[in-house]
């Protein structure tokens, strides 16, 4: 029951494409924002939204240890569930956990071939078959074209959509509130690009590219106190 509630009330449902997923197989999506705005919280909610549909999520983190990533999930799930009432969630939490796998690498050691090797370790022994992959912490100071190009055929082969978090920088000359539009060179790498744009006390979710890009700004906000995604209309 709680699971259904969470799925129906999931604000991300407004972003789904025709196949009822956020990304089609082999597609790339990016969450772009400045440091500290809530990229990881957002991507964890994308993961939870997949986990609630029993999709296997592989979370690749390049700068946080496993325990810290787990904490992100626990915290976001708890807040997510709390926002829909005080129903006990332990059982649901334990059920969805079996669909999640966390892999962490040192940023400097990460390579697509290493990831491919690890994923085949998992699939060959039937331990885990990812259906959504999240890569958190990849450096975007230069567009990581090489990594993405190498990953694209693998994503198609595995039949997964891959989400990335990308940190963008505020141009030095401006002190204006909010973020500048990220460079096209970065946006061009993805089928879907979502920017988190903070103003005084809210974080706007702007869809820069993707199936719903034309339909206003998805009407979504990130609540800065809980880091949960919410509908503007609910506010």
């Amino acid at each position: 029951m709680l699971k259904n509630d969470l799925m129906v009330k999931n604000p991300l449902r407004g972003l789904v494409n025709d196949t009822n997923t956020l990304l089609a197989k082999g597609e790339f999506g990016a969450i772009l924002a400045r440091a500290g705005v809530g990229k990881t919280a957002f991507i964890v909610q994308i993961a939870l939204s997949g986990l609630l549909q029993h999709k296997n999520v592989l979370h690749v983190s390049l700068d946080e240890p496993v325990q810290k990533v787990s904490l992100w999930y626990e915290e976001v799930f708890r807040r997510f569930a709390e926002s829909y009432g005080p129903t006990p969630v332990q059982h649901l939490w334990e059920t969805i956990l079996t669909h999640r796998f966390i892999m962490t690498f040192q940023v400097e050691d990460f390579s697509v071939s290493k990831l491919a090797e690890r994923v085949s370790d998992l699939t060959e022994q039937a331990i885990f078959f990812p259906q959504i992959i999240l890569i958190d912490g990849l450096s975007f100071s230069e567009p990581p074209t090489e990594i993405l190009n190498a990953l694209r055929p693998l994503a198609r082969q595995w039949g997964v959509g891959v989400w990335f978090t990308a940190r963008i920088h505020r141009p030095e000359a401006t002190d204006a509130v909010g973020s500048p539009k990220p460079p096209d060179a970065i946006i061009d790498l993805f089928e879907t690009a979502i920017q988190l744009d903070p103003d005084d006390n809210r974080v706007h979710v702007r869809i820069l590219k993707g199936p719903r890009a034309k339909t206003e700004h998805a009407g979504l906000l990130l609540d800065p106190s809980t880091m949960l995604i919410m509908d503007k209309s609910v506010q």
Partner: protein
Amino acid sequence: MDDRIQKVRNIGISAHIDSGKTTLTERILYYTDRIHAIHDVKGKDGVGATMDAMELERERGITIASAATYCEWKGHQINIIDTPGHVDFTIEVERALRVLDGAVLVLCAVGGVQSQSMTVDQQMKRYNVPCIAFINKCDRSGADPDRVIAQLKKKLGHNAVTMQIPIGLEADFEGIIDLVTMKAIYFDGPNGEIIRTEDIPEAYMDTAQAQREALIDSASMFSDDLMEAALEEQVTEELLIAAVRNGALARELTPVFIGSAYKNKGVQPLLDAVSHYLPCPADVVNHALDMEKDEATMVLETNPDMPVVALAFKLEDGPFGQLTYIRVYQGTLAKGTAVINVRDGKKIKIGRLVRMHADQMEDIDQIRAGYIGTLFGIDCASGDTFVSPGLSVTMTSMFVPNPVISLAITPANNSSLVKMSKALNRFTKEDPTFRTYVNNETRETIVEGMGELHLEVYVERMRREYDVELSTSAPRVSYRETITRKADFDYIHKKQTGGSGQFGRVGGYMEPSPDEDFIFENNVTGGAIPTQFIPACEKGFKACLAKGPKMEFSVTGIKIVISDGASHSVDSSDMAFQAAARGAFLQAYAKAAPVIHEPIMRVVVETPTEFQGVVMGSLNQRRGMIVGTQEDGPLCAIEAQIPLAEMFGYTTVLRSLTQGQAQFTMEFAVYRKVPQSVAEELIKKREDNKRQVA
């Protein structure tokens, strides 16, 4: 403040198994003239390291019981508690940390921050123990102190600062550069006892200067004087040491030292660091609970003239009777004085007092506040508080986890039975996580503990130290039962078979209580059950918890609410209501969808990356849920949650899968429902057993 107390250090040496704690302690004892020859842990000379006093420890190369020892270094009196490195003995580590003022966190220059280091670090945080880090084994191939320092920062969140840099590494490790004195230090002589101080080699000058700058930057956050001196470029050794000490005592800075205990390098500077950067007993605020003020927290003063408050933190059975390791927090414990054991109110006269040095001892007249010593011939349990007559305080109770594994032990003959009960009596007093009871049905003696190795060690100790001949059953997992939905009860207990009758009726409901083991709520109104029988009802329900109706495992996570009932003016009694409660429990329990829960362990395997695939496969086969993998250079840590029942014998499996290069730690995580197929298997097994017994 008493000048003497400022020169006292009570320290622990904590770390991951095999990172060289015992070797380091051995070297410390050698350089402080407490021993006159060095023996290795797995010594070819058959002597073994001095701190590993138990025969079993020597054989396995691990430290089990933390021996306390005393030494002196440049006018400082240092009490060292050598703590065990295996997670199964965590209670020992926790107890040691409770009585320590500071600790040395030993890390391996090759293995870095491993899972056990994280557990130990969390324990240090819990007891707020300031620490310094020592990166050992810098002579080993693959040694990389910089990587370890980075891990200290990232994995453990320490504000780690480099105090020394190595001159050469691995086989070329020659000595160290001290960034405070800006001198190169070499360790000459057959056992590294001759310290040669020279100027820093030209090739290391730039690095040393850059690192010193970084050190001053970090340290100046804890001292305005140092910050001013740094701006004026007049930093003195004293200022720098004082600033680092301030940071370390506040647990906001972790000074990092390097060396190789095995190659006799870097140990003496580490002893200097212990005196410089770790607190004296007076620097630490210790608390006790005042029993007369509803357990209000009170601060103890490290003053030898005040009434005594002391904690017995470890018991050992020596050749001359029971030894009780004690830490005095306040007052002075002197020979011939009397103290009260707060737990049972018994008065004890202090007889012989000694200072321990592993398994040798030295007589003393008194133990003053802040010191650690040993009492002879006192009957007490570990964790007991001793106070002066008239005082009623207790040291904060220590967190003791529940055991998760059990084993039936059967002595071979009568004489072994006597010796076994003597041994069990001792062990249960020494270690609160080790418990024992007799199963009323099978008449077997059951021992319970925190892991396979934990029980194995005690069984071995019974054989060796107490000469007990015994056989053991296969280890059993401590399963539990619980209910998953609410169910009502309304039960009448009525008996009228001559003599006075019995009558009692209880009505209400039971429901799951995820956070508490047992809750009893009385909502009876209008005297439907007279007040004097309510405790009998509770007792009746409680009696049912020990053995669940489904599988005879203990029942937990249950809330009982009684809201109705009836009594009879003549026939109702405590007995009748206890029986009614038992009947009501059985009536509702079957309807409340009972399930079996099993202990799930958090298992972390550390393995070279090339074995990652096979290790994951082996974990997956054990009904494990792999939470994640963490790659870190050539090593990889795999974290999984696995039922304890599947982990028996995993050490051997892992060893053969990884050519002995992987190791794992395991600790209790949570109780979780067993899958249906396993539950059916358990039920079948139980029926088979019953048939066999019949």
